[in-house]
């Protein structure tokens, strides 16, 4: 598939979007929430000409307790596992109503926001279906805080190896989460969609330009966004952005794009920060032993190298 990309203006420090936030202040997210920070930046980049669909989760609960709503764009929440399917319906409706001259005569992106559980676990079927069907103005954003935080820090398939959660507790017979994080970005890319990207709110311009690119491309786009959760990670709220930076500089979370099957590693990490720097600021990893760290380091480098090799083997021309 060849992405049809319309020109778009890149966000820079100079032209950073001003004015009131499309996601209004006064929501009920926890102090230092990296997820709401990412959401706000993404919405700043998009402006107000889009329709938002939320899965059940932290962002839905903290932004929309009746009779209040923080959303200054049309917004719908239906259930937990189906944000991709609801967005598919909205996208199809806007398309047919435009064709029948009963709706706005322009492309309006429909953006689904879901957490890691709503994406990689309970929502993966609906997401796979939506990506495979090729909805033109469909963007799916996974805000990944690496566990079911809204229900009280239960493990998901996105919880990193070794993390202590309420359903992967560290104990005498367990080091905590005993599986490796599911690679949702590569799973999305395997659908052959025109655009997939990973991003971290610590690199805010990169994050914002990725959703602008997603909106400029015709066809389904998938963004996997790292979303620090001080509450669930047992981390000081002021370290949210720091952790979002360290996750990239340690190679744990490579920041890259897959455009028409070509890989672009946005931030090559030749001299990685020690992984311990990332792990030690989070209480969820404090029980880890030396042998756990050996395994984590080995696997992190293996996963990072996979992306490096993909970028070398399938380089983007532009």
């Amino acid at each position, binding site marked *: 598939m060849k992405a049809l990309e319309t020109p778009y203006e890149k966000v820079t420090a100079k032209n950073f979007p001003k004015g009131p936030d499309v996601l209004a202040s006064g929501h009920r997210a926890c102090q230092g929430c990296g997820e709401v920070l990412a959401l706000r930046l993404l919405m700043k980049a998009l402006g107000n000409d889009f329709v938002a669909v939320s899965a059940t989760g932290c962002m839905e609960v903290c932004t929309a*307790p*009746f009779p209040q709503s923080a959303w200054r764009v049309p917004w719908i929440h239906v259930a937990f596992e189906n944000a991709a*399917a609801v967005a598919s*319906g909205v996208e199809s409706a806007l*398309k047919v*109503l435009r064709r029948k001259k009963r709706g706005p005569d322009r492309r309006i992106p429909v953006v689904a926001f879901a957490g890691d559980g709503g994406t990689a676990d309970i929502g993966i*079927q609906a997401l796979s279906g939506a990506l495979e069907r090729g909805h033109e103005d469909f963007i799916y954003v996974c805000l990944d805080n690496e566990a079911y935080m809204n229900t009280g820090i239960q493990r998901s398939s996105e919880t990193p190896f070794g993390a202590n959660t309420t359903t992967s507790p560290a104990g005498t017979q367990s080091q905590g989460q005993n599986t490796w994080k599911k690679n949702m970005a590569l799973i999305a890319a395997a659908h052959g969609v025109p655009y997939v990207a990973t991003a971290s709110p610590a690199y805010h311009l990169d994050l914002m330009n990725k959703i602008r690119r997603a909106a400029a491309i015709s066809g389904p786009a998938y963004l996997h966004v790292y979303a620090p959760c001080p509450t669930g990670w047992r981390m000081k709220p002021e370290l949210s952005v720091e952790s979002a930076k360290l996750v990239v500089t340690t190679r744990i979370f490579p920041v890259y794009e897959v455009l028409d099957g070509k890989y672009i590693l946005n931030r090559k990490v030749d001299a990685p920060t020690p992984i311990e720097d990332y792990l030690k600021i989070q209480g969820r990893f404090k029980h880890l032993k030396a042998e756990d760290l050996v395994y984590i380091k080995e696997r992190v480098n293996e996963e990072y190298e996979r992306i490096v090799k993909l970028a070398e083997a399938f380089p983007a021309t532009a």
Partner: protein
Amino acid sequence: MAKLVGMEVSLAVAEAARLCDTDVVAAYPITPQTHIVEHLSELVANGKLDAEYIPVESEQSAMSSCIGASAAGARTFTATSSQGLALMNEMIFIAPVLRTPIVLAIANRALSAPINIWNDHSDIMTIRDSGWISLFAENGQEALDLTILSFKIGEDPQVSLPVTMNIDGFTLSHFIEPIDIPSLESVRSFLPPWKPLVKLDVSDPISIGLLGTPESYTEARKATDNVLVASKTAVDKAFKEFKERFGREYKSVETYRTEDAETLLLTMGSISETAMTAVDEMRDKGVKAGLVRIRLWRPFPAEDLKEILVKAKNVAVIDRHIMMGAPVGPVGAEVFSILYNANPRPKVKNFVLGLGGRDVTRDDFHLIVEKAKSAPAQDIERYELVGVWE
């Protein structure tokens, strides 16, 4: 006299969705519903219906996409059966409260287990309390007409609720019947494009599906129930308007030879035609039997039904579903409740039959009428299975 066309009932339902200028169809195949959506995808593929057909990966996504499409202002249709409806269940309970007037055709089929693809009403009974308007068709003409009426009723600004249009799987969905297909122009003038009161609109943003705390949840549920109960007026109005336009008359509760009847059979769906024939046979033998059939299952037409039933001595209520652990079936429970304070009050006996495609014959109705007449008072408080292997 209109020209009648021989057509499979499933196809007639799809043709009705075409006549209604449906905007979005999101559907997943399941027997015995599949012919409806197959035909719709064919109509879209050949440019006979200008719609977006979303071939979703499950019924859960079908209903989710329908809610999204309807919330965005599109006229939306889907169809399912049995396990498919069960998989939709979570979203089924959300659609009415979000006030999305989706039309869902259900080719009624038994729920697993054991897995069974044939007809009964166990699927629709799982969503009995969800807030959808539910209509039952008895034959092909009704299936087509009620599909058109479902959009008309659901989209009424006083209603704005989703509607299920029920046809018995196989015994109705797969039959070829003579059907009067109204002209495109007549349907389009009866049902102009839907104008939602609110929708997902970038020029006037609203939020749909907010969190209901203990301070607002009860009011949201009650508001939906109020609208559903009040929708009976819109149903009657739409039936009246339909008769004026197309000449065919529908009522929430239909009757057949009920005047002076001592024993009334009460049915829903396509077995009613068999019951009618049985009533004729009984009348020929001097048995004062009549037939009452519920067309509007939700909102339950309590007043209309009560008025008819209190005139009889015996009422034999037919259920096509076992309400596990309960003394009676779902239709039986409603009838007992509306008649409890009636004076005079007929004797009510509840029968369950025709489960999982088990044949329902005229003889069954003869037997039921005899049993209803002779049932001793102590026997009436529990349903009785008819046609079961001993």
